[in-house]
Each structure stands twice: as C-alpha cells, then as structure tokens.
C-alpha cells in the first residue's frame, strides 16, 4: 500500500513538473526589446532557472522556466513575453526538434562570467559591447593588461576586446592625434604600465597579453573581438619575432624586414596579409576593407549565413537574428578581406557579391573566437569624440543582437555533434 502511494505521488510530482508553465520570449519582429531579452535570460540563468534557446524558432526565441520574478522583470524592462502552458511548450519543443525543421534546442546552463578588456583613463570613443551590456543589464568585469598577465582570465568564461591595438602602435592615431592630450596621456599610461610589469616596450607587453589571451582561448575560453581588436590582435601574434613599431611608438625604428618575418602560423584568423608600415597612415595592414571599397554607404549591408541548426549549432547560435540582412557600419577595422582569412575559419556574415567579410568564427584549442568588423552597429561612422549611442532608441538593433548572441553562446550546454 505504501509503495502504491509512493508511486502515485511520484507520478503526480512528475506531472507537476511537466505541467509547469513556461515563459516564451519570442525574438521575431513581435519582440519589443530584443537587446534586453538577452539580459532577462541571463538573469534567469543567474538565478538558477533553466532556459532553452530555440534556435531559428521565431528569430531564436528563449523559453524560460516559469517564474513571477522573470515576468515582473520582463514587464519592467519592456520585453515582450508570453506565458505558455505545458502543452504549448511541448508543442514548441516538438516543432524545434523535428527533423523537418532547420531548428534546434539549445539548453542554457549557467550565466557565463564576462570580462571586458578596458584600458583605464579617458577614452574618446565608446565600446559597443560595454554599451549593450550596460543596456541589457548584464554584469561584467573590467580587466586590462595587468589583470590578464597575472592570470585573472581563468576566472572568466568570456572575454571581449574592442577598439584595442595589440601591436603597440596606439591605434595608429599618430598623424591625427599625436598632440591631443588624450593620446599623449594614453601613451604615457601604457608606457608606465609596461615598465611596471617589467617590459621594456609597450609592444612587448601587448604581445605578452595577446599570447596570454591566446592561451585562454586554447584552454577553453571564448573571445569576442570587434573593430581594431580583430586584426591588430592577429598582427601582434604574427609579429612575435620582429619589431613593427616605428620610433614615435617605442623609441626605436621598426625592423626593415618585419614583413618577411611575420609568422602566420601563430595567428588565429588571418594570413598572408601585408603590413602598413607608414606610421602616418591610419591602418595596420591590408586585412581591413577601405571606405573607398565600400563605395556608396547607402548600399552597405551585410548578410548572415543560414547554417544547419542541427549540424552546425555554434554558428547557428551566433547568427540568430530577426533580420538576416543587416545595415553595415564602419570602424577602424570595418570588414575583413576574404583572401586573407584562413581556410579553417567559418564565415558568418558577408557583403554579398564581394570579398568583404563582416563576421567570422573559429576554433583554437578547446576554445573559440569570433571577430566582428566595425565599431558601433548603430552609428555608421563613429568618429573619435562622438557621443555614445543611445540604445533606448535601438532596442531592436539586429547588429547589436549579434554581440549578445556571443555572450549567451558560452552558456550553452555542449552537445555531441551530429554525424
């Protein structure tokens, strides 16, 4: 009798779990605030709730365990949601997992710990990632060279690099800003830090930082870079055997044979590139697409690739969006030249019919990295000194969504690849 009672209780208990309602956060055009939806999901994970990412279902929707707290947060943040019954949730699961649909269910396990590489002191530009993290209320820590070199990266799952110059050439702003107080101050700060950390030159310190970041990726970390952090990072790695910095950057001349000494084996994404050695030219190499190549800015749009959700879940996650043609945007590094991207790299966004690549992803060791060209997805030409973008005006920005896909991606439970 006791066993029968326990059995009935167990059935009732399991039914209770199954019958529990869910919160669906649709990410299609019905969504009122796409960017804050990621924050809601992130906080749900932080609070120990289960969340599923429904890849390609209504723009990559989220299905979260029912919780009055989540509902209240959605309302306060103005995020559109639907309370759905267990049977509706089951229906959605079956659609998403059906072999006939290019959809997949990705269980999100834990909120990733996020670090953003931010130099101390005043910066006359803004970082799209910190802007969107602040807007979506996703917590993050700031780290810089010292923290990275002392091994702090092991505390984090995800690292973001933005408008950084890993080559030690201070963004190659010399021609335009060498007399600007912020530029002078920045150079001094970097030099002081290099000295403090035991490096003779800033470029040596930045190489050590780049190598540490590479090791972080190799050991299973996720790195997301935008704008000049993309190409300058790879250039710094390639130049580990030589000196590419001119006198105004490090006090001595660049190696005249630097180009021939580049080691493309050491880079993550790019190869065969040619350095721009002229310190007065605001460009590192030929990786970046020049404004003249874009021609009419009015026609600057890039297209996201459509991946198989069941066979390629990672790039599918990274390209979840409610729009697949997205307005382009410039940066110190705007887009990458197709011919200089390694074959092993997955291209996720490109300007169709051209060799201009916007968004790429790759693996290194046990970790992954994503490079996204351009500075601010909602400010076509963000100039030095421009005010930060007001994201309350761009709650549904598809360009910013790509950044947030990268933030939630490390939360996904690793699945065995289908063969």
């Amino acid at each position, binding site marked *: 009798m006791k066993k029968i009672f326990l059995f009935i209780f167990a059935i009732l208990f399991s039914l209770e779990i199954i019958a529990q309602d869910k919160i669906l956060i649709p990410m299609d055009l019905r969504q009122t605030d796409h960017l804050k939806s990621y924050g809601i999901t992130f906080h749900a994970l932080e609070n120990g709730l289960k969340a599923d990412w429904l890849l390609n279902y209504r723009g990559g929707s989220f299905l979260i365990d029912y919780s009055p707290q989540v509902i*209240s947060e959605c*309302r*306060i*943040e*103005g995020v559109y949601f639907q309370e759905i019954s267990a049977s509706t949730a089951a229906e959605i699961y079956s659609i998403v997992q059906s072999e006939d649909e290019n959809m997949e269910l990705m269980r999100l396990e834990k909120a990733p710990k996020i670090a953003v590489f931010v130099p101390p002191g005043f910066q006359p530009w803004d970082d799209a990632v910190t802007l969107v993290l602040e807007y979506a209320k996703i917590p993050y820590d700031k780290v810089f060279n010292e923290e990275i070199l002392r091994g702090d990266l092991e505390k984090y799952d995800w690292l973001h690099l933005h408008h950084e110059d890993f080559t030690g050439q201070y963004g190659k702003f010399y021609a335009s800003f060498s007399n600007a*107080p912020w530029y*002078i*101050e920045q150079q*001094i*700060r970097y*030099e*002081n830090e290099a000295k403090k950390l035991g490096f003779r030159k800033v470029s040596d310190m930045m190489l050590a930082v780049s190598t540490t970041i590479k090791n972080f990726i190799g050991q299973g970390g996720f790195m997301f870079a935008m704008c000049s952090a993309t190409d300058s990072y790879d250039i710094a790695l390639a130049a580990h055997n030589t*000196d590419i910095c001119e006198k105004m950057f*490090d*006090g*001595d*001349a660049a*190696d*005249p044979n630097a180009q021939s000494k580049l080691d493309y084996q050491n880079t993550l994404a790019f190869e065969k590139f040619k350095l721009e050695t002229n310190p007065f030219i605001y460009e590192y190499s030929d990786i970046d697409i020049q404004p003249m190549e874009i021609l009419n800015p009015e026609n600057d749009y890039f297209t996201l690739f459509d991946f198989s959700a069941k066979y390629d879940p990672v790039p599918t996650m990274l390209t979840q969006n409610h729009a697949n043609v997205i307005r382009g945007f410039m940066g110190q590094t705007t887009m990458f030249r197709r011919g200089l991207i390694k074959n092993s790299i997955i291209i996720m966004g490109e300007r169709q019919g051209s060799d201009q690549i916007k968004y790429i992803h790759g693996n290194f060791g046990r970790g992954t990295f994503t490079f996204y060209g351009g500075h601010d997805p909602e400010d076509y030409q963000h100039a030095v000194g421009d005010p930060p973008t007001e994201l309350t005006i761009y709650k549904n920005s598809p360009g910013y969504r790509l950044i947030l896909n990268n933030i939630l991606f490390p939360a996904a439970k690793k699945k065995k690849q289908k063969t």
Partner: protein
Amino acid sequence: MIRIIFISFFVNTLLLIAQPGNLQNKFLLAQSYEQSGDLNRAIEIYEEVYNAQPANYQFFFALNKIYIQNKNYDKAIFITEQRLQLTPGDYNLIGMLGVALYLKGDEAKAFKLWDETINQNQDNQNLYRTFANYSIELRLFDKAIEILNKGKNRSQIKTIYSYDLANLYTMRMQYGDAIKEYLFLIDNDPNQAKSIESRILQMLSRPDAVPIVISALEEKNSAQNPNYAMLLTSAYLENSSFEKAVKINIELDKKNNLKGIEVFNLAQRLYYLRQYSQASIAYEYVLKNYSDAPFIPQIKLGFAKTFEAALEEKVANVLQLWKPLRKSEIVFASEYEKSIIAYEDIIKSFNNNEAAIEAYFRIGQIFELRLKNYEKAKTNYKVIAERYKLSSFYSSANEALARISLSENNFIEAEEYLNEIINFPRTSPDSRNLAKFRKAELKYFSGKFDEAKNILVEIMGAFKDNIANDAIELSILLNTSINDSSLLIKFASAEYLAFKENFTEAIILLEEIEKVEDAIFLANQASITKMECFIALSNYTMALQIGEKLIQQENLNLFADKALFLSAQIYQFGISSDKKAKELYEQLLIKHPGSLYLDKAREEINYLRNKLS
C-alpha cells in the same frame, strides 16, 4: 608602379652623373636608396663616402642615422666613438652615443656616460637640456626629469629648467610636481605668468589634477595674488566649488582694490553655469560696493535675472510639481519683492529697450504667478501690450492678460486679448496656435462647444505643434459628449472651477456628473478629474478611494491606468510609501501593457528599486 619607375629613373640618372671621387653625388644616391627603402644598398654607399671622408659630419650623421634605423647598433657605436676621438668635447656626439648604447640594450652604460659627462661639466646649462632631449626621444621621461632636476639643483638660475620640468611632470600625470614647478616659475618670473596660467588651465581639464591644483594654490594664500586667485577661481569652478570661487574673488577684490571687475566676470560665468544663488551674491557685492561702475546696468540686469532664477529653483523644491492640478501658494514673497525692485531699477536704467520690456514682463509674471496680485500683474503686462507691439514679449503678455481675465470671469476681455495675438500679422505660428487653443478652451468653458470645435479643427492640422495633442484631447471630449450638452456644460464648469483653483466647488459638480448612469464616458472623466482635485487639496485618502474604484474597473474604464498611475504617485510623493508606490507601478505594467504611462512607471520602478535596495 609609377613610383618605382620614377625612383629607377632617378637612381639611374644619379648613377650616370656619379663620377669616381664625386662623393656628394654618391651621397645623394645613398639618400635616394634610403628613401626608396633599400637600406642595405644605402648603407653600402654611405659607408663608402664616410670612409672616404671620416671627418665629414654630414656623412657621419647620415651613416649613424641609417645604422640606428637598421638596428646596426654596434656599428653606430663604433663610428660615434671613432668620431668622438676627433672631437672629444662634442656633447651631441655623447648624446648620440648614449642613444645607440641604450637601443643596443646597454642602458647602464648609456646612463653612466651621460651622468659622468654632466658631472664633469656641471655648469654647462645646455648639456642638461641636450641629454634630457635625447632621453625624451627615447621616451625615457624619468631620466629626462632626473637630468633636468640635476641641472636645476646645480644652476644659479633655477627657473631655466622649471618650464621643461613642469611640462614633463604634466605629461607623466605627476600633477603635484607640475604645479609646484609652475608656481615656482610664477613666483620667480612673473613675466611668464600669462603663458604659465594657460598651461595650468589646460591641466585643469584633467579631473584628477583639479584637487591637486586647488590644494597647491590654497597653500599659497592666493587671495593676495591676482594671478593665483584667477587660477584658483578656475580650479574651483572645475571642482564645482562655486561658493569658494565667489569668496576668494571678493577677498581678492577687497585686498587689491580691483573695482569689482573680476567679481563681475565671475558672476557672468556663474550665471551661464546656472549657479544662480552664487551669481547673485557676486552681482550684489558689485552693486553695493561700486554703484558708479561703468558696467552697472549690465550688473543690474544680471543680478535681477539670477536672483529670480535662484528663487525659482527654491520654489520648485517647495511646490509639489508632481500634482496634475495644484493650488497656487505664495512663497518667498519678501524675496520676490526684492526681485521686483531689481527689475524696476532696470526699467529706469534701460528705458524703452528690450531689457526694460523683459523687466516689465518678469514683474508681471512675479505678480501673477508668485504673488497672486493680478491688478499689478495686469498693469505691467499692459505696458507691453499697449506700447511695445513689436517686442518678442507682445504675444506672451497678451496671453497672460487673457489668462487673468479668464480667471476673473471676464470672458469678453480674455477673448479680445487672444484675438489681438491671432490677428496680429507678426505673431509666430506657434504663438497663434496657442492663442487659438486658449480661445477654444474659453469657448468650451463658456459652453459654446460648436465654436470651440471649429477652432480646434484649425489647430489639429498643425501636427508638429506642441499644442496639437491638447487640442485633440479636448476635441475628443467635445465630440463624445456633445449629445448631452447640459451635462457637458456642467463638466466644463467643473473644469473651469478647477482652472480657477476652486477645487471644492469643482468636486461638487463632478460628483453630480458621476451619478448620471447613462453618461459613462463623462462620468469616468469626472471621476478622474475629481481624483486630481483631491490630490490638489492634498486629500490623499479621498483621492486614493476614487483611484481604487477606477482601478477595479480595469479595462471597462478608460482612465483605470491613469488612476493607477496617480495612486502610485500619491504613495511615492504624497505619503512617502515607496514600497507601495513600486507595487502599484508594477501593477500598471501588468494590467495596462498599452498605457501611455508605462515609460514613466518603468523609470520610477527603477528609481525606487535603487532607493529601496
């Protein structure tokens, strides 16, 4: 490609020209190779010409430079040492040798070389500067500072190194040391004060430098020295220490008999920084102490404006601006009287010009809105309406006169004033639309609904105008309720009473409307207006009771969301129960996801969340 062809052509031409023994042509050839980036070929030729004429400084210099560029530091050291044997006392060569040694990685040897040279020639002022410059070239700022400090300590004229030192300290963000050097320079060479002041002012643009500069200047007892006081004022302004800025300027003025000029300049700066209370203190000081100053009219105008602006800030804190309807209160009356006196003084000083007209208008506003003395307000407004038709205050004065007439039940006079604005050809479109809306309101209050509707149609076409929304709202009320005109007249009368701040009588009429069962829209409108009237009377218990009733009707009542929002506001600002307020705002989000009040509710929730946590 064109560049390569050009360089080849140039090089070939030079080769043809170059004859054995013609070193100068070879030298030019080497320079061409260097410019084209063929450093190895350039080095070969430079070595050839250098070996032919080791004493030629031009050849030596070019060869040394290219060695450094090509990172051939040993060779650079060798030829520099060789040349030093020819001219042992050449400090430039010693500097260059130090650079090559440092770049090679032999930092200790380089510094030893420079230090020994300096110690052997302690009185040579140029030497310190030369080696400091080589250090700066290598971005060795600490070394440069060390060398210049040595020079300063050993020199009879201490100031010659201070400027460079201060600049280096600023660059290194060592603001304490920098300000010491700059002040040392001002103390010892007052002729340089102006240029140094500009450097210090630049330094103040860095927030972390401001407190350091302030503390250094405070130590100097700056009130004694006009240069320091000026700098300290700027530092105080950067640091938002406005009171201190005023204090030091007044002190400076008293001690140095500056005739109020600096205090007046500061007052103007403070006015633009919207620091009205401190600006008015500064103006008042000049007015009291320098009544015969040539700039006294400007001071009078500035003083009157800042004094009133400061009062308005104080009033905003006292009046409960969150209330949709408010009972006017006379606050700070004696201070406003002072403000009026200041404006009257301006009228006397600036008779017939725009400043005087503005003074009339400001006096009118104070009497009307702050002192509730309509007669005096009208007298001042009428001066503008009758004498200054071309003034920018003409429309505003007429509108204010119409407003007063309306509150005095003189509808005919009110309409006449509004017609003045509407019919005057120079009236701006915005002012004309506002006057038309006021006229429509007037017609509505007097029960002439068709006339009101016709006027509103004219304004609603101007969608860009701010007044269009108000016009639409009134138009909806008129169109929905015009069938029961007797009830609408009652509602209009109630609104008119509320306009006249007679909230108690308005409530009586609104309650009568609420009782009419078949006029749902107007009854609901009456309830929400009644709630607003009770809020105006600070009778929050009654207001909340009405609100609760409206909230319970949820979607059946058009004003349920507004009632919920107003209830939350009562709890937040009237009763100071933040928790309950937050709860009600959250309810608003849940129950009325399409409400106009959502954004404001979200903003308040976030504010209260932070406050409560």
